[in-house]
């Protein structure tokens, strides 16, 4: 469905994407994760024909068509849908949802009646109240606008849907609703979805997660596999330690089996170790022996958020070491 081979993007001297490779199959949900400036949007902009060919190299195919050829743009744009981060860019606030549907479907040359039928079915999947369908968009709530925006992105039944920060600006409880709706749409329509996001909870619905940092693709796999690649398949021990400070943390880190230690709260740390089950009692003993007061302890599997944090931290440390060695 989407093939990216050796993608490099350069704007003048600024090399923003470095040798990115990935393959996405029909019906998959891909999460593009990374901190700001990682290159998520740039990759999507290449895939959606928004960046001129002179700025990028590589073999890229979207629905078996290359965005490198200008003659393919119209077909690619017919095959894809896009849901921008801001509804303001996607919806005419002074028109009704049905009018908006008409505006966007007309650009694909679709039949109006059929489009409205599709729209209504999408509105129903997305639980858009029927009494809002013919009222001006500006009177809808934030969540309703977000869902309408998604419906507009899918109105022409695209093979691939790109969503830019779909959960941004939505309050915590509604965030999960949006993710649920996306999964529902994906399952109902079998649409391939690309989700550009900072929200690591979005990995919950992703079949594959792409982690990007400074234009490089660090990982591209299922979230479960990525988590399993952590020491002891991602088993984590969480401790609440009294009077936790940097000195204490450094002391705990001296326990040789610890692979990664993360401070996750004021008095909370999470620890990843090799041979978790064997080493956990030893670590507890080590802490007691050294008068480190443990208030509580639990064990769990690492979340994707934790995996992301660890992976980025690793990369930063690697880079720091490299820079230090270069300095020496």
């Amino acid at each position, binding site marked *: 469905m989407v093939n990216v081979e050796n993608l490099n993007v350069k704007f003048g001297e600024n090399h923003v994407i470095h040798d990115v490779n990935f393959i996405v199959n029909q019906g998959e949900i891909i999460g593009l994760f990374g901190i700001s400036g990682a290159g998520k949007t740039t990759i999507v902009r290449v895939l*959606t024909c928004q960046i001129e060919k002179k700025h990028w190299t590589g073999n890229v195919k979207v629905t078996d068509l290359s965005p490198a050829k200008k003659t393919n743009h119209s077909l690619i744009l017919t095959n894809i849908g*896009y849901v921008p981060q801001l509804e303001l*860019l996607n919806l005419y606030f002074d028109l009704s949802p049905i009018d908006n549907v008409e505006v966007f479907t007309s650009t694909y040359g679709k039949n109006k009646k059929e489009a409205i039928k599709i729209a209504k079915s999408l509105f129903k999947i997305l639980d858009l109240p029927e009494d809002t369908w013919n009222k001006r968009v500006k009177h809808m709530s934030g969540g309703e606008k977000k869902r309408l925006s998604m419906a507009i992105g899918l109105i022409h039944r695209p093979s691939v849907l790109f969503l830019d920060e779909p959960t941004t600006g939505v309050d915590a409880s509604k965030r999960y609703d949006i993710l649920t709706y996306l999964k529902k749409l994906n399952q109902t329509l079998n649409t391939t979805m690309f989700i550009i996001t900072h929200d690591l909870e979005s990995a919950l619905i992703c079949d594959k997660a792409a982690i990007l940092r400074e234009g490089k693709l660090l990982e591209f796999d299922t979230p479960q596999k990525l988590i399993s690649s952590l020491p002891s398949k991602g088993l984590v021990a969480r401790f609440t330690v009294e009077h936790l400070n940097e000195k204490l943390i450094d002391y705990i880190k001296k326990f040789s089996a610890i692979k990664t230690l993360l401070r996750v709260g004021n008095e909370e740390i999470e620890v990843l170790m090799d041979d978790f089950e064997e080493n956990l009692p030893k670590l507890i003993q080590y802490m007691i022996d050294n008068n480190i007061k443990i208030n509580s302890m639990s064990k769990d599997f690492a979340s994707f958020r934790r995996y992301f944090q660890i992976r980025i931290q690793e990369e930063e440390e690697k880079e720091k070491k490299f820079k230090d060695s270069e300095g020496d």
Partner: protein
Amino acid sequence: MMRLKKKSLRLNFEKFSNEITNLKMSILRIVKQVKKEFRLLWADKFNIMLAIVMPPLIIVMLGFTMTDDSNQMQSIPCIVVSYDSNTFINENDLVESKLDHYAIPYLNAVNKSDLLDLVRFYNATEEIYAMEQARNALISGSIKVILSIPVAFTEMLEWGLPGLIDCILDASNILYIQQSLNAVYDSIKIFINDTNLTPQFEVHGFEEFTIPEGYSSSFNSSIVMALSFMVFGIAFVLSILVIVQEKPIARLLLTPLKRSEILTSKYIAYMLVLLLQVTLLVITSLSMGLYLAGSILDLFIALFIIGFSGLALGVFISSQSKTKTQANQLFLAAYLVIILLSGIFIPIENMPSFLQFFAYVLPLSHGDPMIRGIITKGQHVFGMHFFWLFIISLILIIISFVIFRRRKYEV
């Protein structure tokens, strides 16, 4: 008692000092906010430049256009038609006519006057269509005055009677009436100085330009000026935000829709609105008592092309403006300049030559005379003014397409 008084004084002092501290804090906060405002203003340099540079620029332009000299036309183009001739039979038995001897000094006086420009002279006894040709010239706008020397003008002056020169003015534009009269006075003055005779002259508005009884002259004189302003201004203001305001254009570009299609559809939609607007304007003007010398279709087409030029200019400004404020600022600046240089307040011919060139590029400089010509003189729409308006609009549309093609959109 004293202690209580002291305590109360101390309390008042503390209160006062607190007030002063609060005031100081408030001033400090305001200063910081003012600084922030300037920073924000400075962030949009083009806007601030418009706000600061444009008003003095307009004053400078006013200075160039509204001088005392500009109230005086350089020279009024005119035609002299003389009926004052001696007819006789020459030796070949043919009828011949010769200008009578006081027609020639008046012709010389016209030639001598700096305020009149003699475009043509007709001896009406030889050219029977002289007055008709002169009238055609007046209708076409190539002259502003016909001076008609009557039969027996010479005899009347010789017998001490007032010789009446008919002065037929182009009264379609109020700006030219006084100037034309001044110019004719000048020629009479020169004639009196040269001959020591005193002719009189009678002024007529060209009868074909006059409004028949039953029509309001004040309504007609004001509507002539207002129509072109109105149709241009409304189309201009309506289209000024058409691109800059529409945020979802960025998203539309991620569909198979092309930029040229977006812009074309905007022109079509606004042209349809213009069509309705012009139809209503024509209907209401006529029903309110507009006396139209020309045809309704000509007026309709003329108003449409004027509105279309306003639309083209509005879309052009909108396509190159980054923000709504910028578009509004540019609208105001452009409209002021267009009105000022339209020739409605100061004849374009009286402006400095560099401003004349600039004025002729602007749409209303062609729109106003075109409408005036159709309404008051019964001219046809398809002339130089129409051609220029069409060219100006076309150029603006082409530039708008180029700018819009290059405009950056990101979703």
